[in-house]
């Protein structure tokens, strides 16, 4: 289906190759409007870059991609200089080599040389570049002042000392996510990337998405690691430590062991986690299926009872915080469903604890997530439903409160633990998830890709409403990397308009429509990160446009191979309702699986103040 437009695009590109120039003495052609960097790439000439990142950053700040253009007084930055007819470009001259080397040396002078113990070392662009340019030592001494780390956020730690001021993080936060939580302060060598009033990521409107960490060329922004806490829990014999794994992790974790993207490493991941010492290895896909039943019924209830529409998905915690900060007036549109992570945590410490006959206080729930915002989500004060459930039964005081999810590991942290434990991920034979919270369907798997929640919901809602069986399960119109996708689905004459957005910049557009009363949709899926969870801020540093696509392919292939592909067919979910929850949107669901939101605003005083939770009408019947 995608081949025709692609062919057209290629054809157009060919026609537009109208710029004739010389690169290193050879006649070359470049597309109209191409930069020198693109022209060189087309010509097979490599120009080193540092601050430049395709589709994210072309600030031209680092001064590494410089080339010589005949007749120009200064060297040109290949990343931002447009190719023009008759240009004579040289990428390998003494001046070019000296300039690149000097500029990298200047950066190294103010960069701590702790590569041996730096967590980013294996992925550090600065380290690679220094090696490529043959820099053995920096001739320059440190001149910059030391900066303190920003550890105010539960999700991310910023270390300005490692920052080379490339501004990729600022660009991705402002341009892609439209959040603008970080920016430059200070001048010259006192320049530093920081938050408003230097209040730290934890004190401002940061969505905790972690895209800044993904694009950072050095180790200046990293997830806040919970590895030590998780080891401690695993090593504690009194604790039953269970791990849940989000769908997007299985298609990415192998990349951290040098494996080629495009495969789901589900079995290896489950086996490796078991080898780490987790008592039970479960699957967040299970609660993804559960989410579909709760959310699908919530949507139908809203449609039937004249509730607030469009309804928006609530699985992505970065998006939730974004909405609370920037669109506090439209929080009624958010589904009251907790995210699959939090549904899992609440059930693990109630339903499963009862099943096991274990004190919920001795259960440690660890999430393995592609996401840094999940760390924040797990710490939201209202995410202690299991405590509320047990409070009376066990005669607990408020001070005894425990969270539903104890620790959240990103894909990267889990990979580090696997390496630390000496597990050969590539070689380990695959194993299954444990039962019953490891049983899931293809609908749960596709939660990991943009459009997946929508597609999973449509599979269920269609069959529930029409009573017919879908002949084709794939809803192609909501798949793919287009920023905003929309579709119309006919449910027995009821035309349901749906939209899917990924990346908060795209989300903002749909939110503005809603705010202005112009949204034509009934149901909207929003994912914080580009590509959905598979492009999450906790994924391996190999994340880019290409790996995102390959991970999506792996997710859809995994879905296709699953014996069950519709959430409402999940037998473990059916059992859960029969044994414990009774029915979707029922009383227990309300207590354990649904939540409320906090209007925050963006004014520093608003952000800091913990406002009382909004009183929301819940859709449950009780």
């Amino acid at each position, binding site marked *: 289906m995608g081949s025709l437009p692609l062919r057209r695009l290629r054809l157009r590109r060919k026609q537009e190759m109208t710029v004739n120039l010389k690169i290193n003495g050879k006649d070359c052609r470049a597309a109209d409007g191409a930069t020198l960097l693109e022209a060189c790439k087309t010509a097979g000439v490599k120009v080193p870059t540092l601050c430049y990142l395709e589709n994210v950053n072309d*600030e*031209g*700040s*680092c*001064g*590494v991609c*410089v080339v010589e253009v005949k007749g120009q007084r*200064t*060297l040109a*930055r290949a990343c*931002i200089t*447009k190719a023009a007819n008759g240009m004579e470009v040289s990428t390998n001259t003494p*001046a070019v080599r*000296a*300039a690149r080397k*000097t*500029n990298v040396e*200047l*950066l190294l*002078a*103010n960069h701590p040389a702790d590569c041996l113990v730096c967590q980013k070392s294996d992925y550090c662009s600065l380290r690679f570049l220094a090696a490529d340019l043959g820099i053995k030592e920096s*001739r*320059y*001494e440190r*001149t*910059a002042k030391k900066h303190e780390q920003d550890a105010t956020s539960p999700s991310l730690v910023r270390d300005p000392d490692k920052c*080379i*001021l490339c501004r990729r993080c600022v660009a991705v936060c402002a341009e892609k996510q439209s959040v603008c939580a970080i*920016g*430059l302060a*200070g*001048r*010259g*060598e*006192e*320049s530093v990337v920081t938050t408003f009033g230097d209040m730290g990521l934890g004190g401002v409107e940061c969505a905790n998405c972690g895209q800044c960490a993904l694009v950072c060329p050095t180790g200046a922004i990293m997830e806040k690691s919970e590895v030590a806490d998780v080891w401690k829990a695993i090593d504690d014999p009194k604790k039953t430590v269970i791990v849940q794994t989000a769908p997007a992790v299985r298609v990415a974790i192998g990349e951290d062991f040098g494996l080629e993207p495009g495969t789901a490493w589900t079995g290896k991941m489950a086996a490796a986690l078991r080898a780490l010492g987790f008592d039970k290895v479960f699957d967040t896909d299970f609660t993804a299926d559960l989410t579909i039943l709760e959310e699908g019924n919530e949507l139908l209830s809203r449609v039937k009872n004249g509730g607030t529409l469009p309804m928006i998905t609530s699985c992505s915690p970065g998006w939730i915080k974004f909405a609370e900060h920037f669109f506090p007036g439209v929080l009624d549109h958010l589904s009251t469903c907790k995210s699959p992570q939090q549904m899992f945590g609440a059930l693990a410490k109630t339903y499963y604890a009862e099943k096991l006959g274990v004190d919920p206080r001795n259960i440690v729930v660890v999430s393995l997530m592609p996401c840094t915002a999940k760390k924040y989500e797990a710490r939201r004060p209202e995410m202690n439903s299991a405590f509320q459930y047990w409070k009376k039964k066990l005669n607990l005081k408020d001070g005894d409160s425990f969270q539903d999810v104890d620790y959240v590991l990103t894909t990267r942290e889990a990979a580090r633990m696997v390496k630390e434990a000496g597990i050969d991920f590539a070689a380990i034979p695959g194993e299954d998830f444990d039962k019953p919270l490891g049983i899931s369907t293809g609908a749960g798997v596709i939660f990991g890709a943009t459009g997946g929640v929508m597609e999973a919901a449509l599979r269920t809602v269609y069959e529930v409403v029409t009573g017919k069986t879908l002949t084709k399960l794939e809803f192609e119109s909501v798949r793919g990397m287009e920023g905003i996708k929309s579709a119309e689905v006919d449910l027995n004459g009821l035309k349901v308009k749906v939209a899917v957005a990924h990346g908060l910049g795209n989300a903002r557009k749909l939110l503005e429509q809603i705010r202005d009363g112009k949204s034509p949709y009934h149901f909207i899926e929003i994912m914080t990160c580009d590509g959905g969870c598979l492009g999450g801020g906790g994924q391996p540093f190999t994340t880019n446009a290409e790996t995102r696509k390959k991970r999506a392919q792996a997710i859809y292939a995994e879905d296709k191979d699953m014996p069950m592909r519709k959430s409402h067919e999940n037998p473990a979910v059916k059992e859960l309702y029969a044994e414990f929850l009774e029915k979707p949107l029922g009383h227990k669901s309300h207590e354990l699986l649904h939540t409320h939101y906090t209007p925050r605003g963006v004014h520093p005083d608003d952000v800091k103040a913990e406002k009382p939770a909004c009183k929301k009408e819940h859709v449950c019947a009780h």
Partner: protein
Amino acid sequence: MKTTILVSHDRRAMAAGAAAAEAALRAEISKRGLDKDISVSATGSLGYEAGGACVLVMPLAVVYTPVTAADAADIIEAASKGRALERLAKPVSKSWKMPASGSHAEKLAAAQQRVILGNAGVIDPENIGEYVSAGGYGALAKALAMKPEEVIAEIKTSELRGRGGAGFPTATKWASAAQEKADIKYVVCNADEGEPGTFKDREIMEGDPHKLIEGMIIAGYAIGASKGYIYIRGEYALSISRLEKAAEAARAKGFLGEKVLGGNFAFDIEIARGAGAYICGEESALIESIEGKRGEPRRKPPYPAQKGLWQKPTVVNNVETLAAVPHIILNGGLWHKALGAEGARGTKIFSIAGDLNWKGVVEIPFGTPVSAIINEIGGGVKGGRKLKAVILGGVSGSLLTDSEIATPVDFNSLAKIEAGPGSGAVIVLDETRSVVEAVLNIARFFKHESCGRCTPCRAGTAQIVRILEKIRDGKAAEDDITKLESLARVMAQTSFCPLGQTAANILSQSLKKFAGEWEACLCAGCACGGNKK
């Protein structure tokens, strides 16, 4: 005939007690019952850098400076008798008769050609009537009777080049913005005069603010702009208040507003204040600053003429450039082309400072040799000492040695010695000055003012300061000079904007031209106190 005493109310004079001197003069007049015969008014600067207030007595055309309250009785006594008070007298221009004779002061008068500064120190800058009486806004009326393209053609004929430092042809800039189609265009006046040693635009804004406003309206008409911004250095409080008053008066008289001079052309001016960043004198950083953003340069292209303020076509011109415009329109492009030198037409205002006997602001035709500025205008090096070097065009400009000062100040002649007129700053260093200290001083300035956007400028300026401090302290390593050379080269070649590209200009020129002094500094017992072991 009635005598008028004009008291210079420029910033320097105000700081030196001009208000007290003026009050004393008024009191003296009242005391003697001369209120009907002698009046006192405020005016702009006459360009004198002397350490006190400065007054001009008309029609006698005699300037007294420095004046304090204690001189009031003598001045009024002389004025009442129609005589000059020789004790304090200074001449100002060759066109004015000067009873006092001899002295360097007459050379100063003879060398000047005050066109742009013609009204400064003559009219009351806060009185629009005086500007109009002196022919003000006549150029505007003439321009509005022309087609916009004819106005640009006249500027083209004049060969006016930008006076901010780069010397870009003004007509080319205007034509480029004029051909853009947009719902709104802007004229932005760069009055963020921040180049160290440069204080010439202030003389225009304090002494003749309407001339700048008139130039801006004409520029707006020529390119089809309806809005003008004057971005003024925040420290220029007096310039800001004078321009605010001038814009208000111009609005009241119909020179600004919905119907300029009652016609169909609409133009108004807003004043924006800088907050002390040198980088905001770079046109695209200036635009960012007006937009309320961090002052950092934008990438070019697109140039401001295509996408400037709020992404609309914008012409950014220096104060002096715009103030030259009314004269060109009134007298014709050919008149302007006849002034100055080949490739550098018209007059240029210079700020003269350093180790000289006379310091101040003068307007002279392009083509005057640097040596004439130093010896005739500046009265020679202070204390009869020898000249060591001249910093020309500001600290981002060039460093001239004694053997180069015969060069005429114009773009072509200076280009031959890798120099340029820049902003028109002339800073003289005498033989007692250490080149290393001077270069370090400049380096510290750039380290402080680098915006931080690009690596070579942000880190390079800091490294240069560090190395220079080592050299000054006699702790330099063998390869420190090589490091400086390599930093200077890479900064010039790869800095994002002119700030970084020129920050090491003087350093690299000094390394070539004063190699001996650098070497001495690397050796034991150097002049600047270092002891290299």
